[in-house]
């Protein structure tokens, strides 16, 4: 599989504060990578680095420009801060995923609206085009934001803790949908929940200032502590691969 982007010896942070230290990572077509690590360890910063919102203080982020640039990276941020009573309807939220292909004064044409409509249908949200987020369930809200991330036809999809705001009944369905999407695009997913995620991802990146790449979905507490990645492996009954250990 060809390489989509390459991060090399990157340092990055906010002002004086360095969050990521000397990290290197290669993302290729077909990847489905779980990004795990403690809160404040730099998972979100890594995603923002790839998106170009955070710039490296040293080192390089290089896109394989024949395949990808910033405009075909889909992004599902942590959306807990979004106000669900904001007077914006589902269709317009999905359309905002096309803004990277538009000028600041850009208008949405008929093709754009059809594209948004198709995504809404694919995600099972038909009938809710004119609803605001406050009228939707947690799982539906998450699908709306996934729709926004998919609107621009991404080759790489970045998800920031998508399991944070969804109840467990939607979890399985959501991950199965991601597995389906992974046939068409590479996926990088930041997550707390290593246990559940490990049955869907193909590899892990453990981020806690430094980054350790782990090329398989099986990961143990020993490996996590060797990576200096203090997170807890949680027991989930239906997860086949994970080695579960009691956390001290």
């Amino acid at each position, binding site marked *: 599989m060809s390489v989509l982007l390459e991060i090399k010896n990157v340092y990055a942070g906010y002002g004086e504060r360095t969050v990521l230290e000397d990290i290197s990572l290669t993302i290729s077509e077909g990847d489905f990578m779980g990004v795990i690590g403690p809160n404040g360890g730099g998972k979100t910063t890594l995603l923002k680095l790839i*998106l*170009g*919102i955070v710039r490296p203080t040293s080192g390089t982020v290089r896109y394989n420009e024949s395949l990808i640039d*910033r*405009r075909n*990276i889909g*992004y599902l*941020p942590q*959306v807990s*801060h*979004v*106000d669900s009573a*904001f*007077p*914006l*309807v589902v269709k*317009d*939220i999905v*359309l*905002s995923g096309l*803004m*990277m292909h*538009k000028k*600041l*004064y*850009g*208008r*949405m044409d008929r093709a754009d609206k059809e594209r948004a409509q198709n995504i809404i249908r694919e995600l099972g949200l038909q009938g809710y085009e*004119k*609803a*605001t987020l406050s009228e939707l369930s947690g799982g539906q809200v998450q699908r709306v934001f996934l729709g*926004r991330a998919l609107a621009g036809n991404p080759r790489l999809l970045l998800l920031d803790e998508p399991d944070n705001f969804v109840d467990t009944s939607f979890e399985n369905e959501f991950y199965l949908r991601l597995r389906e999407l992974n046939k068409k695009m590479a996926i990088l997913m930041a997550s707390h929940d290593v246990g559940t995620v490990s049955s869907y991802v193909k590899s892990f990146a453990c981020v806690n200032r430094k980054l350790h790449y782990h090329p398989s979905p099986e990961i143990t507490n020993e490996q996590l502590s060797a990576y200096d990645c203090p997170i807890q492996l949680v027991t989930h009954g239906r997860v086949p691969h994970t080695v579960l250990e009691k956390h001290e």
Partner: protein
Amino acid sequence: MIMESILQYDFVIKGLLGCLFASITAGIAGTYIVSRRLVFLSGGITHASFGGIGIGYYAGFSPVAGAAVFGILSALGIEYLSIKQKLREDSAIGILWALGMATGIIFIFLTPGYTPNLMSFLFGSILTVTTADLISLGLLSVVLIIYFSVFYRTILYISFDENYARTYTSYVNVFKYITTALLALTIVLNIRMAGVVLVLSLLTIPPNIAMLFTRNYASVMRWSVLFGFIGAVTGYGMAWFAGIPAGAAIIFSMVVIWIISRIFTSVIKKINKKYSES
């Protein structure tokens, strides 16, 4: 006789134009304020600008110009602090709010002689609106309409989710500053209409009426302008015929429209429910 009716005619036209421009500017800016939950910030800007009014009186320049400078600077200052996350935004607004009022009162107190227009700045007076006021409000209406229609999606999406907007544009802060400055200008120029005490409701009531009927941002803006205009003209008429303060009459009629709309929409909802049950 003829002279008198021409004067009255001129008076009516001025009043109607005042209502129109006030409802356009307040409807557009108000929708932005209400949906971004910036009502408290707007209160801060309003009261901070009172400091400018006081200094204007004292130093002998236009109180509206003083208010505009104070309003815009304080709005940009608050936006800057919140972008840099240097200070809790609500505390900053609270301090600015009180500082503006204190400054205004001190300078008005220091100004020798009687200050006849003070009441009109506190409670507004559409009846004494000048041609200069109308021209500036008219220009602001045009600027707001152009700005919001050209950059509609960009402004909308930044105010909905600025973190996401940063993934496709590096101009998020620029747009926030421009919109906030226009917001401050809207507040300051509408102080002439409704006064420092009441201007906030001129901006927040119409969008709240509109949101009873629609949840689509563009429609909320349009309906806000319409409801604002109806409320303003009704209040203006009441003020004229009953001889009561116009600012208060306008706000009062807007609240009445809001109450009627609430009852209307809940009745419609009940009827719909009954209809779908049977």
